[in-house]
């Protein structure tokens, strides 16, 4: 039984990664896609904090504890802090790109984007794109 509990954090991380990836694959809106990317990123928080955990240990803050008390690993906690900050800024950058895309093409649906390097998928407007350029 303790074996199963020992595996749970890693299984949880794989599961978070999986559902985030499914969300990205099936996404119909770029804002939703950005949220799914955040879900994928949280799997990395889970792995890092899981690695640094120790049963019966305190948080690595020794203000009210005697220095030398068994504490969990602060190295991975600092990494998670970095991870969160980068996640927030990358989300902001992606959302800015979504806004620009919406302004240029009026579209926020990843499925409606044409794959790069492929010939144009025929559109109703006779090849005219919403931004006025011919396809």
């Amino acid at each position, binding site marked *: 039984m303790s074996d199963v509990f020992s*595996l749970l954090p890693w*299984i949880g991380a794989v599961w978070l990664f999986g559902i985030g990836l499914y969300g990205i694959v099936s996404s119909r809106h770029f804002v939703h896609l950005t949220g799914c990317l955040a879900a994928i990123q949280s799997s990395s928080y889970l792995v890092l904090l899981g690695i640094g955990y*120790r049963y019966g240990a305190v948080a690595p803050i020794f203000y009210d504890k005697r*220095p030398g008390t068994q504490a969990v690993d602060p*190295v991975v906690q600092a990494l998670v802090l970095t991870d969160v900050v980068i996640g927030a*800024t990358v989300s902001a950058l992606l959302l800015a790109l979504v806004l*620009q895309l919406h302004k240029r093409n009026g579209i926020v*649906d990843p499925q409606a984007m044409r794959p790069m390097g492929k010939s144009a998928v025929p559109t109703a407007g006779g090849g005219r*794109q919403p931004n006025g350029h011919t396809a």
Partner: protein
Amino acid sequence: MSALDVSSHKAQATIGRRGIILRVAFVILAVGLAVVAWPVVHAMPQFGSHPLPYGDRVNAIGPAERHITNMVSAINFDIRGIDTLGEEFMLLCAVTGGTVLLRGGRGEDRAASPGHVKGRANHRPPDSLRLLCRVLAPLTMLFGLYLAINAMLTPGGGFQGGVVIASALLLIYLAEGYAGWRDALGSEFFDAIEGLGAALYALCGFVSMGLGLPYLAAFLPFGTLKNTFSGGSMLIVNLGVTLAVAGGFATLLIEFMEETRTLKPGDDPDE
């Protein structure tokens, strides 16, 4: 970048077909991920009861040699200070990128009605919300400052405090509306704060070098344990991070809020 006209039946059929292909590809990928992940998951160290050599070293060094009690701050601002400098500049780059993408020639007009979506009523925020936000905004700001100032003692630090300070600015927006908000905050001010914060961090490293120490090495006395102003030059670094994060997130908030402003005839919608 081109896009489909999603309204046509043909385009809808194409999108549906792509959706099925993508989902099939995902199922194959997920099975592959599970197969690869299973041995990795089993090879992971025993959860909660394996040695943490680096963590234990840091936990010993922090209070004894650096005279601070928050080990995460000890790592961020001293032990891996140069990594945090990289993180700091990554933040700066992301904010600059976002600003470049969003900022256009729309100027700083405060009279335009922002947050207004065409075809949707633009209500004035209710008085209860305004009162709540006016009460909460200073308290949130104070809490952010508390987190940032006590970085060396208790959970918190420049990153957390900076983000909390920036969210207090959002509460001011909720209370005062766009015009009042923009009157209260100048985007130049926050641009300057962000740049100054990052510069303070980098320059702190050069001061160490000027004193003949390695880059970002601590050069001030560490002070006494459990004193707010213990930690020596980590305090300067922490101040730099606080300014940069608060300024960066405030800049992003302002730029995103600018996007909701209704365009006037002269404005270029592409910018």
